[in-house]
């Protein structure tokens, strides 16, 4: 993920427990990195236990996103602030749903970290441009992890629901990019196959 600010990326990985492969792919802890290529066959490593690990990893990301949008709100004005408030609510909805799913699989949902821990890890931000840049980086980290995690889920309906979250995060990043690059659709929607790795 070369286009996310390296320090931001490092701090976000530490906060979220994601693992980065040599190729830049982000993996949820316990979800495994090997790509299964057999056509027409399910991933043999897909199990409810791994589902739980993937969903709990996603929950940690959503908890981080809630903290991040709360942190950037004071720097935003007008339409950007309105959008960020909406995104904050949506990240909370994702978090509640993921926590419920983890419980449903017999697990204990990861809890949010103390605010001070998030704030210590977030970059120093002084204006709206910094805030939008950070939110974009954060959404790209989340997208990259969801793109890797969704196909690894063993349960068909969990895949559908997490793909629906991924699509919402993709909307967020496009609207953030559009705010940063008005009138430039190629900057707002930079890739036909969303990976979270495109230029921010």
């Amino acid at each position, binding site marked *: 993920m070369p286009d996310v600010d390296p320090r931001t990326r490092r701090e976000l990985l530490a906060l979220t427990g994601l693992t980065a492969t040599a190729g830049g792919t982000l993996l949820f802890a316990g979800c495994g990195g090997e*790509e*299964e*290529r057999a*056509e*027409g*066959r*399910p*991933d043999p490593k*897909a*199990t*409810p236990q791994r589902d739980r690990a993937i*969903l709990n990893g996603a929950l940690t990301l959503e908890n981080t996103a809630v903290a991040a949008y709360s942190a950037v709100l004071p720097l935003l004005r007008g339409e950007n602030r309105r959008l960020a408030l*909406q*995104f904050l609510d*949506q990240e909370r*909805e*994702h978090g*509640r*749903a993921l926590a*419920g*799913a*983890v419980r*449903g*699989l017999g697990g204990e949902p990861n809890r949010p970290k103390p605010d001070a821990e998030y704030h210590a890890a977030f970059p120093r931000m002084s204006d709206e441009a910094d805030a939008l840049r950070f939110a974009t980086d954060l959404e790209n980290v989340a*997208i990259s992890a*969801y*793109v890797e995690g*969704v*196909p*690894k889920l*063993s*349960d*068909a*309906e*969990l*895949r*559908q*629901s*997490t*793909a*629906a*979250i*991924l*699509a*919402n*995060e*993709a*909307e967020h*990043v*496009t*609207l953030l990019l*559009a705010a940063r690059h008005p*009138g430039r*659709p190629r900057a*707002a*929607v930079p890739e*036909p*196959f*969303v*990976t979270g790795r495109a230029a921010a």
Partner: protein
Amino acid sequence: MLAGGALLAAGGLSATRALGAAPGSERAVLASALRLEQEAVLAYDSAVRAGELGRLTDSAELFAEHERRHAEALSLALRQLGAEPPSAPRRVEEVRGLAQALRGGAKRTARFLIGLEERSLRTYYRAQGTLRSPAPLATSAGIMANEAQHLALLRRSVGQNPSPVAFVTGRG
């Protein structure tokens, strides 16, 4: 099929867990998605040619490129499953509602494109439940996210909330 967060919130497990789907179902959902991509290519190209889109023209040109890339990927995936991709529509009359939308000006065309993107999203959402091999699942997820991005910018262009729901299934 449960909407977005309902299943997650309930923590439920589906009857289809780990069973996957028959290869025929995989081919069917990929063929449906491909047909919608082909219709989208024609719709965006036709809208650009009609010259009525105003500020949306650059976006429509970009989205047509994206839909072409999606169609190529889906055609390849279908061939790998032993199926022949459907032929693409060539005339606006072959896409239901497109000709009327184009005659109705920019806003009506944008609303038609919104409807098309929503149908695509519903198909890719369904595909996540039907496909079972990791590579097509990953491709489908990446395309679904891209269609959501298109939809966000199209909605905003007609004054709608660009991201109205937390779980994007094409029904929100």
